[in-house]
């Protein structure tokens, strides 16, 4: 698993990556009450706002970590947003992305690096 400074995790599955938010991010957000997912088939660029997530406190955007095409979204989150608090690094993935340029993955942190990043 790779981690971004935006508190997302990426797991490589063939030529796709699965994207979600970290346990740390979910804790910071508090109880999640709403998730708006992108359309499958959307082409996105790094840092595009692709997911809206609202907790009891506030709305936040999840950015596309790399360029690619959204191949699948986790529709279960729409009906059950609290999954993001229950299992952020497992069941509560947000979307799968077909990677345009795998080299964009190189800048991301490994688990140890991320743990050091969040202190």
């Amino acid at each position, binding site marked *: 698993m790779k981690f971004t400074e935006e508190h997302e995790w990426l797991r490589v599955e063939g030529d796709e990556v699965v994207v979600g938010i970290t346990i740390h991010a979910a804790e910071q957000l*508090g*109880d999640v009450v709403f998730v708006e997912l992108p359309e499958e088939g959307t082409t996105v660029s790094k840092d595009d706002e692709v997911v809206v997530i609202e907790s009891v406190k506030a*709305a936040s955007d999840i950015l596309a970590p790399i360029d690619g095409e959204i191949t699948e979204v986790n529709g279960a989150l729409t009906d059950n947003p609290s999954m993001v608090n229950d299992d952020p690094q497992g069941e509560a993935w947000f979307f799968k992305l077909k990677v345009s340029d795998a080299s964009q993955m190189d800048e991301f942190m490994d688990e140890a690096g991320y743990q050091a990043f969040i202190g």
Partner: protein
Amino acid sequence: MSDLNRTPLFDLHVELGAKMVPFAGYEMPVQYPLGVMKEHQHTRDAAGLFDVSHMGQVILSGQSWQAVATAFETLVPMDVLGLGDGRQRYGLFTNDAGGIEDDLMFARRGDDLFVVVNAACKTADIARMKAALEPEITVTALTDRALIAVQGPGAEAAVSAMDAAAADMTFMHVRDLTLDGIAVWASRSGYTGEDGYEISVPDAQAEALTRKLLAQDGVEAIGLGARDSLRLEAGLCLYGHDIDATTNPVEGALNWAVQKVRRRDGDRAGGFPGAEAVMAAFENGAARKRVGLLPEGRAPMREGVAIFDADAGGTQVGTVTSGGFGPTFGGPVAMGYVATEHSKTGTPLWGEVRGKRLPLTIAKLPFVAANFKR
């Protein structure tokens, strides 16, 4: 955060694992480890304890109850003189334009009036009372008392376990209690839509009392986050958001709070700041009204969301003033102001969230029925 005030319960909040945030000049607990959603639901199911010591507590005293009540009626459009001993009422300070300077609770304690005002307004409120009422009336800010709310269906059992007389109180009554040896002033009221008490206690005994209350069955410490979602579901106004100096009581849908005796043709009509404007609003209606707003989808509509009369184009007819997720309601809930012609329950309108018009309906308040002990 060194310039912020702390309540006498600060150390206890930290010990309980609260996340402390700045609020109205105080460091206050926004949530505890339980989290906002569970804290909210716990209050509806059992009992929640809230530190509201940041609020202003003031005693007005004078020659007689008549003198105190008559004087206070010059500042609020409420029936104060008719308040029985040991009774409490909701009130509003108005300005010369009929706008609301603060909302408050006032109670008769013998010949004195006990007033509780919002933290963010307390300095101005105390100055207003002193300027208008002294020297005939003595205005004393009680800076050495904490205020603790215990709210929820389990509140009666928790408080009456410490003084059985608590169970005899009904909604909006006040009296002295002795809770495990600690003398307090209690009111059977609160701001969550639930049954419960607000307990005024000397600072020196606040922490000991709070520990005893938290030791009662089913009582959990609850932060400001859940306090906000509880009062929103209950349809209660947050001052500075849902009502402010530019909204009059009729616009704010607080007509019920202005008793007939203070309205036109009442025995003590007018005589408060902005009386003409307020009475004109009663007679002519207001151009806008505070209403409940029920978003159709799951997306919360928060403060500032613009409300339109069409799903595209059209005209802005209102604005959300409070909104979020209602944990007990089980979906997003909001309140705000809309033009009166769109304020009828059931009217379909649209809120613009992140550039998209999402459907909503004008809804009756409260979203969750009140559970008071009448």
